[in-house]
């Protein structure tokens, strides 16, 4: 690197920037800062501004915010109709509530399925531990979309789950599982399970075996040891895993679109349909703004709170 920093263009550029009052330090800070300001922060202001517009038949399909009034003065054309509709139409309210409910139930099941896997891996000797960990991570690196697709064939009326249940005689008639809320929950649990297992594993593997031995020596049964020693000690891992599943599950679009039925309401899907099917850009923007305040803001606040209490490690 000496060659680069000693080269003439480099020195001239550095001197030129120095004359203009820019230090190398400012420049290094400015590059990621500017990119994120333009492509992450500014879009939210655009979103807020368009949520106050009306849909019109034009390109782009929303009304301008400022307009010249007949007398030449500048008028601000902002209306809160979209937000009024969001409040009055029960569709949107139900979609928000049902997203939270579906995400909550799925997170709970992901925890119930993921915990034994994480615990088992944490207590396995090498090299079994590494192999099992890789087996957990492998599905994550394959396509998310194709993992959801796998369940479409699985849960069909003539699918493998029904064939198996009919064959073993557990049921007499095929169950209808596709296009239900149940299918959406299975899909969420399935696709986000690695996100539950990995933080749980990271936490459980750090626990000192001596605690379990002490508990056993004092006469506790394995179940009592688990409930009174292991479980309380793994709370930070449980919280981290649940957050990693719950947060993306609320705004999920692909899973309800492929596995859900027409009555499976989720807010991400409502936003998508508002934009792509109804072509109502301002309404989609309003849904997104409300989602920011009702879903994203509380989640960020909760994470901050957990960080401060040292529970999110």
């Amino acid at each position, binding site marked *: 690197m000496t060659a680069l920093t000693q080269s003439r263009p480099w020195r001239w550029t550095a001197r030129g920037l120095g004359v203009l009052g820019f230090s190398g330090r400012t420049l*290094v800070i400015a590059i*990621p800062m500017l990119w994120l300001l333009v492509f992450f*922060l500014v879009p939210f202001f*655009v*979103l807020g501004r368009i949520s106050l517009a009306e849909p019109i038949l034009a390109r782009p399909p929303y009304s301008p915010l400022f307009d010249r009034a007949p007398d030449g003065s500048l008028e601000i054309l902002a209306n809160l109709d979209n937000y009024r509709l969001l409040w009055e139409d029960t569709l949107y309210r139900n979609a928000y509530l049902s997203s939270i409910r579906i995400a909550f139930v799925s997170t709970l099941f992901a925890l119930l399925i993921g915990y034994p896997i994480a615990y088992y891996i944490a207590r396995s000797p090498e090299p079994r531990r590494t192999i099992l960990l890789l087996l957990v991570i492998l599905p994550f*690196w*394959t396509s998310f979309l194709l993992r959801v697709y*796998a369940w479409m*064939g699985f849960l069909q009326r003539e699918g493998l789950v029904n064939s198996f249940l009919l064959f073993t005689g557990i049921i007499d008639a095929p169950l209808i599982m596709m296009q239900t809320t149940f299918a959406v929950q299975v899909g969420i649990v399935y696709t986000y399970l690695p996100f539950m297992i990995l933080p749980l594993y990271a936490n459980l593997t750090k626990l000192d075996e001596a605690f379990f031995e002490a508990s056993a020596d004092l006469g506790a049964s394995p179940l009592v040891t688990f409930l009174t020693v292991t479980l309380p000690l793994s709370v930070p891992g449980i919280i981290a895993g649940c957050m990693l599943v719950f947060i993306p599950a609320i705004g999920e679009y692909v899973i309800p679109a492929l596995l859900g039925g027409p009555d499976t309401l989720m807010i991400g899907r409502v936003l998508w349909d508002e934009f792509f099917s109804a072509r109502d850009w301002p309404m989609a923007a309003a849904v997104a703004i409300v989602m920011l305040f009702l879903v994203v803001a509380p989640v960020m606040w909760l994470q901050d709170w957990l960080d401060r209490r040292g529970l999110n490690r």
Partner: protein
Amino acid sequence: MKRGWTLPILALLGFVFLYAPIVALVVFSFNESRLVTVWAGFSTRWYVALFNDRQILQAAWISLQVAVASATLATVFGVLAAFVLARLGRFRGRLLLTGMTTAPLVMPEVITGLSLLLLFVAMEQVLGWPGGRGMGTIIIAHTTFCLAFVAVIAQSRLRDMDESLEEAARDLGAGPVRVFFDITLPVIAPAIVAGWLLAFTLSLDDLVIASFVSGPGASTLPMVVFSKVRLGVSPDVNALATIIIAVVALSIATAGVILYRQNKRRAQGR
């Protein structure tokens, strides 16, 4: 300590849950019949169909280009952001930068996608750029959301790193640029590789953001696959999935063997 059978059985059931759909996906990609539920004999016709599908091949090529470009850009910006936050101490806008590198991690994709599309449309109206949407706008969008993931990984590595190495280089007279390229970068190189790979996978996998910010003629692979599977199961998608799973499994197995050998060598060295 006594070990019962409950835990291994529960863990085994968990792994069956994880792998049964994948196994079924692979098996039925070799099925003669169009139905993905009834076995009608072995056949590779869906692989032939897949490789003759120009739409899918073209989309795969676009996806690869987008993923390489946005992973690289995201790694450059993400590592810079991580370095600024971990090493430069206090500066104006620090809190803002921290927020902007962590918020994308919890941002629902539909919001990121919609807000970026509206930005591009507004910019086109005001500045005349970007003229239309396509690969360029997808790369910008993917760079922005992958950047945060790279920054998190690089930042945790920078925090764990022994800062006395950088101090020693400074004491020996190296300038800040030289310290960064000769000391910091080589030490955090594994985290940078990991960050690039994660960004590459996230970009390759994204359907929602790409659907919002893409334009005519720039459909990524997930967009084409989604429009296919929306109409129901189709065996050529199974064939595509099998190829992806095979590639990923091979790379992970290779990485696993290398890691295992390294650990063993390190353990023996002690």
